């Protein structure tokens, strides 16, 4: 990340170290493709393995403006380490540039993030829901989506004496 800061000083908003000693960087959404391309292609870094990505809804955290975060984990087989960075997006402009042109592995992860948080990815070739069905309303991993909100495609039959999971009153 030192090299990223040196190359793109304007792209990095913030840098910190998490509780396990992993270094994080917060990147401007606009410079995300630029930074990711640098991480992937730089001869000394070669973070080519697309590890993971997901969204975070910070609604109930102390610093909740902007509300959403998208986290990215890449891995370098050359340096044998992970790199962790994230992008912050506000509720009003939920668009992040897509990394699919850079990493094909980003395709399904971006669909997952769209599915669960409603964050759109600009430039994604096929942005549709992946785990939920097309008729589903809303994005269930947002903190303001109720735990008990059910959207069955077929009406559910009432079942007696069944505890329907945590945080519930226990009735179906």
């Amino acid at each position, binding site marked *: 990340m030192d090299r990223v800061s040196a190359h793109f000083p304007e792209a990095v908003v913030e840098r910190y170290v998490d509780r396990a000693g992993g270094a994080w960087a917060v990147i401007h959404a606009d410079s995300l493709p630029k930074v990711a391309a640098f991480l992937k292609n730089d001869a000394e870094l070669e973070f080519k393995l697309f590890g993971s990505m997901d969204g975070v809804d910070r609604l109930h955290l102390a610093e909740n403006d902007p509300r959403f975060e998208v*986290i990215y984990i890449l891995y370098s087989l050359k340096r044998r380490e992970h790199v962790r960075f994230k992008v912050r997006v506000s509720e009003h402009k939920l668009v992040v540039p897509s990394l699919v042109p850079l990493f094909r*592995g980003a395709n399904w992860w971006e669909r997952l993030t769209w599915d669960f948080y409603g964050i759109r990815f600009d430039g994604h070739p096929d942005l549709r829901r992946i785990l939920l069905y097309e008729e589903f309303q809303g994005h269930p991993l947002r903190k303001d989506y109720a735990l008990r909100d059910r959207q069955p495609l077929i009406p559910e039959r009432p079942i007696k004496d069944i505890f329907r999971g945590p945080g519930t009153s226990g009735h179906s």
Partner: protein
Amino acid sequence: MANSHSIEAQGHNPDTDGSLPPEGSELDAHLQSKHMVINMGPSHPATHGTVRLKVELDGETIVKIDPEIGFLHRGFQKSCENVTWTQCLPYTDRLNYLSAMMNNFGFLNAVEKLIGLEIPERAQYIRVIGSELHRLTDHLTCVGATGLEMGGFAPFLYGMEARELIQDRVTELTGARLTTTFGRVGGINRDLPEGWADKVLRTLTRTEELLVEMDGLLTGNRIFVDRTKGTGVITAEDAIDFGWTGPALRACGVDHDLRKVQPYWVYDRLDFDVAVGEHGDNYDRYLVRMEEMRQSIRIIRQALDTIPAGPIIVDDWRIALPPKPEVYGTIEGVMAHFKLVMEGIQVPPGEVYDATEASNGELGWYLVSDGRGRPYKCHVRAPGFPVLAAVPHIIEGKMLADLIPTFDTINMIGGEVEQ
């Protein structure tokens, strides 16, 4: 000719008109070759889970394939974010019920990193033993099922015999056969039963015998080799680009194993080799899994040999439940017990990404704590997810029959992919 006359007598046939065999070639069978879309699944005997594959075929060639997942989605993240850290453990078991302990311990490892906790040495050894036992059951099932779907029932039965033996040992250790919930934050639930280590060693010897049988039935088998060698090929560059890890990536020739490159628990003290393939095809993925099982057996033997005596969970009542005499006899014990059960472990605020090597690859956890007893965010990076995402890339343009061995050897697990 009598033949052409009889076809004319049947009148207009849209299916065969325009493709009538030319004169004198009645013996060439006419095969239809229009595009058709078939559904494999959501419940198909060869997909090992509920996944629907929309396959567009031209004859026997796959033109386009679109895997549709989510039939098993049960809100893993949302469920975890609404229960205490300890109560997440049963959910993590169910990500992959053939290697429950690995998922369990992987999650705990991330939570312990978040707390900044070092677990006792004996607990680390027991975690290694449990993980490797479950790596064996997972690979045995995968390899056995691959053999079964290539038409060999005997290797499957041998695999199941070894798996059941190991699962008996797991049952003796944890009290449950599949969903073990064996770990605890700061250590593990209980110590090894008396005489258990000897039983495990005998089981491993028997497993080795069964592995030799499976190896003999599959590795040189003409049908098996013909259907797996050179099918489902992916290059190392593509596999890395898609984010593959684990045996599927190592089969492409990439020497990458988190147990070696960033050792956790006591893996750095144990001697084992990383199995690496060459061609990235189904056959190599099978061979890598076979070799990994032999290495797992090696690891368990060493670990049982060198396991030290000592506590199996940290002695900190803010994290681990107090011993029962303390709970029943002292007010401090009652209070600690009550606080842990009702409020959960108070994990300091912060975030962490931590990964362990599960049976199918990197099992990563991104956890955020807001300082209360529940995870604020619990993201799981399931190893099967990127692997399944690459299936269209691998299989488009290939034969329909290649889909079955490919789907077998990438070992997609519905529970973790669909969260």
